[in-house]
């Protein structure tokens, strides 16, 4: 009898069916690997398993008995612990207090810190890290140390199943070895592990079985982790049902004009680089890479939102002031950031005001606004981009994700920007509206704007970009015209790092 059986799990969010009838079973003492591209539904599935999301339909049984995981506490009581990618520890509090957070060792409300510290020390020793002081503040530990604490917290419960979401992402190679030793110890005790990672070589080392998720469905199950060839895993991850309509690319051939934006030896310690980059007018350059490969950091550094530790950015041959957004915007660079709501939009304001906010001096004399012109010009651009409904006086929060993104693009069109940096431009945009955004982006490029596109969705990068740079761990491992690449090849590159 499997330890856990999930069948027909379905979960929808407004506009998206994140999980569509997913089945998963986990045996005692096995390492069950979950594979899938970004957006395939892995995170939603583990949140359902952790009790953080309630499924719309489907059954879960635990040790043969049907259960409802109505809350994280309910999941924890059964013995399901989750170690999230972004560790959920309280930094200003000691290791021991973090380990027993929410289930403190106490008598009638009075905590017994000495006992908590002693038991924490035992757990840390079991995890191979007796050197971590249970009294130390979590904020003073390394990323690897914090992860050990997170694991100690999971083990402080009577745990039968541990979910690990990309546990190796923040670890050095020797720390990864220790992690694998811990996983082996746990499984020897009969604890099951659901292991999520993008690194196929890890899955080969510790995995037992692999399930592949794709577009919210199970694309493959019961694959043997050690023997299934890479190309088969990749094929299962990529063979997709949804076809996107991409605008036609211009025929390349004639040498393009001189580059507008040039980055020379640009680097940020620990994040990316050093790397060189050239953007030419009319060209869409795609950046392919995993989350954490330094994509967003590179974009933000080009834009001046982060200060490079080495190298420089030039526009029309003139160097920008490092770490100055104002200087970048003045030179004609625009950014559509990854988190539209928190990083781009003024949610209380109308579309018009969101569009005009970067170009206010254009509508003002001595600080005095010409609101009629402001409205007319903003409207001209939102109309050009096909804002729907065509009413830029409405608050921006009443628009759909795709139309909000149009408002952000209109902001930079109005500003007359010549370099557009797009970070996940179609995140939270439904499939129909995507094609429309793709057409808009291509039209902008045709009008002479340089576009640098970051997307987790490979078809999007390949379908939209003229040239693709593959980023792995902060370095460009491959650069090629997009027609010379396909999804498999790029996935091989971002995962293995060496041309196959």
């Amino acid at each position: 009898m499997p330890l856990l059986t999930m069948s027909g799990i379905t979960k929808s969010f407004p506009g998206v069916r994140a999980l569509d009838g997913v089945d998963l079973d986990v045996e005692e003492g096995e390492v069950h690997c979950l594979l899938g591209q970004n957006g395939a539904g892995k995170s939603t599935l583990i949140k359902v398993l952790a009790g953080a999301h309630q499924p719309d339909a489907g059954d879960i049984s635990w040790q043969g008995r049907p259960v409802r995981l109505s809350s994280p506490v309910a999941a924890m009581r059964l013995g399901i612990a989750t170690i999230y990618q972004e560790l959920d520890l309280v930094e200003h509090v000691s290791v021991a207090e973090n380990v027993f957070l929410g289930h403190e060792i106490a008598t009638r409300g009075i905590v017994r810190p000495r006992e908590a510290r002693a038991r924490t020390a035992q757990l840390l020793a079991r995890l191979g890290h007796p050197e971590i002081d249970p009294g130390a503040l979590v904020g003073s530990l390394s990323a690897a140390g914090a992860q050990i604490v997170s694991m100690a917290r999971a083990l402080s419960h009577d745990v039968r199943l541990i979910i690990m979401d990309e546990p190796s992402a923040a670890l050095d190679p020797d720390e990864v070895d220790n992690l694998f030793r811990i996983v082996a110890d746990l499984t020897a005790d009969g604890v099951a592990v659901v292991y999520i990672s993008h690194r196929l070589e890890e899955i080969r080392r510790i995995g037992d079985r692999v399930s592949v998720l794709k577009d919210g469905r199970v694309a493959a199950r019961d694959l043997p982790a050690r023997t299934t060839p890479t190309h088969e895993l990749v094929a299962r991850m990529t063979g997709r049902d949804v076809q996107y309509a991409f605008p036609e690319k211009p025929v390349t051939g004639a040498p393009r004009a001189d580059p507008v934006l040039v980055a020379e030896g640009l680097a940020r310690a620990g994040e990316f680089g050093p790397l060189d980059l050239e953007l030419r007018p009319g060209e869409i350059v795609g950046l392919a890479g995993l989350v954490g490969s330094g994509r967003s950091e590179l974009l933000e550094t080009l834009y001046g939102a982060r200060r490079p530790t080495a190298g420089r950015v030039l526009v029309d041959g003139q160097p920008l002031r490092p770490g100055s957004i104002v200087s970048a915007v003045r030179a004609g660079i625009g950014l559509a950031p990854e988190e539209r709501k928190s990083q781009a939009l003024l949610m209380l304001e109308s579309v018009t005001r969101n569009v005009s906010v970067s170009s206010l001096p254009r509508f003002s004399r001595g600080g005095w606004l010409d609101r009629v012109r402001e409205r007319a010009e903003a409207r001209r651009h939102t109309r050009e981009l096909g804002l729907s409904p065509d009413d830029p006086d409405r608050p921006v929060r009443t628009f759909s994700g795709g139309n909000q993104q149009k408002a952000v693009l209109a902001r930079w069109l109005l500003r007359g920007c010549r370099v557009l940096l797009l970070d996940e431009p179609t995140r939270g945009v439904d499939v129909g509206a995507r094609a429309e955004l793709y057409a808009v982006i291509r039209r902008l490029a045709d009008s002479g704007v340089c576009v640098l596109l970051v997307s987790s969705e490979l078809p999007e990068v390949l379908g939209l970009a003229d040239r693709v740079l593959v980023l792995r761990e902060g370095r460009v491992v491959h650069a090629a015209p997009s027609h010379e690449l396909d999804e498999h090849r790029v996935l091989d590159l971002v995962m293995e790092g060496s041309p196959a």
Partner: protein
Amino acid sequence: MNSPTGVADTPKVPSPPANGAPAKRRTPLDVRHLSLIGVLLALAVVGAFTKPDEFLAAENLRLILTQASVIGVVTVGVTFVIIGGGIDLSVGAIVALASVWATTVATQDFGLGGMLLCSVLVGVGCGLVNGLLIAYGPMVPFIATLAMLASARGLALQISDGKTQVVTVESVLDLGVKDAYVLGIPPIVLVFAVVCVIGWLLLNRTTFGRRTVAVGGNPEASRLAGIAVKRQRLLLYLLSGLCCGIAAFMLIVLTGSGQNTNGNLYELDAIAAAIIGGTLLSGGRGTILGSVLGVLVFTTITNLFALNNLQTDIQQIAKGAIIVAAVLVQKGRSSHD
């Protein structure tokens, strides 16, 4: 959005000019303003019934407006700071320091112009320190202005030695007497009116106002949109300091003196008035009109209680209740959006 009262009330109330294009959804008089006007009318009715001869007398109405003017000017500045995502706890202390500095014997030698200049410069100077600490420090506004509150009060006490500094400059004192009234309105009230109009224009018709709203509503998005967020924050505290300097001079004219106890708890009154006027404490939304109405409501309550010889403790309770009620109305409305 469509309140049942909106239809009946909107045409009767004179609204600030809506330039050019029809501003359908941005009527300056929203439900919250109308409800504050309703509260004011209710208070007037109470006043007219309890003290029919005294409350509606021109002298008393002038008194209410005069009392509202000093705190009103401070509130306009504070409103900008809060809309811009900050808070200024030091306004009362700055008013005290400016009023003391401008009434020292040495300053009074320079006459009216010197005293006015001194008052304004002290205000702007304190605002500059606040702004530099907050924008470039960077310090949390609450802490930086709390520190300014303590030190400005202390400096005011040190300069005045705790004594009331009587103004001997005739031209200053003349501004407070009846002869200086314009069409029956004291100059202090006129200054308040001018500050309100300028504040309204600044917030609604200039790039400065637009950026204030943007920075308060979403500082990260503003930064990524290319707005110089730090400079904007600095300017906001400068503006608040300037308002304090002006208010301090108004207080000097009104009382004929400068005192280190001036402006006591102005910070709380100003913040409360802005909040009941609909300014979001988290920033990004607020109106000058709302703040002015908030000030008028509080001042009228104070006046009513004084006329009826009621204790100030009951008055404080009433103020507290109004703040809670106003915020609940605000919450109810935003959840309907």
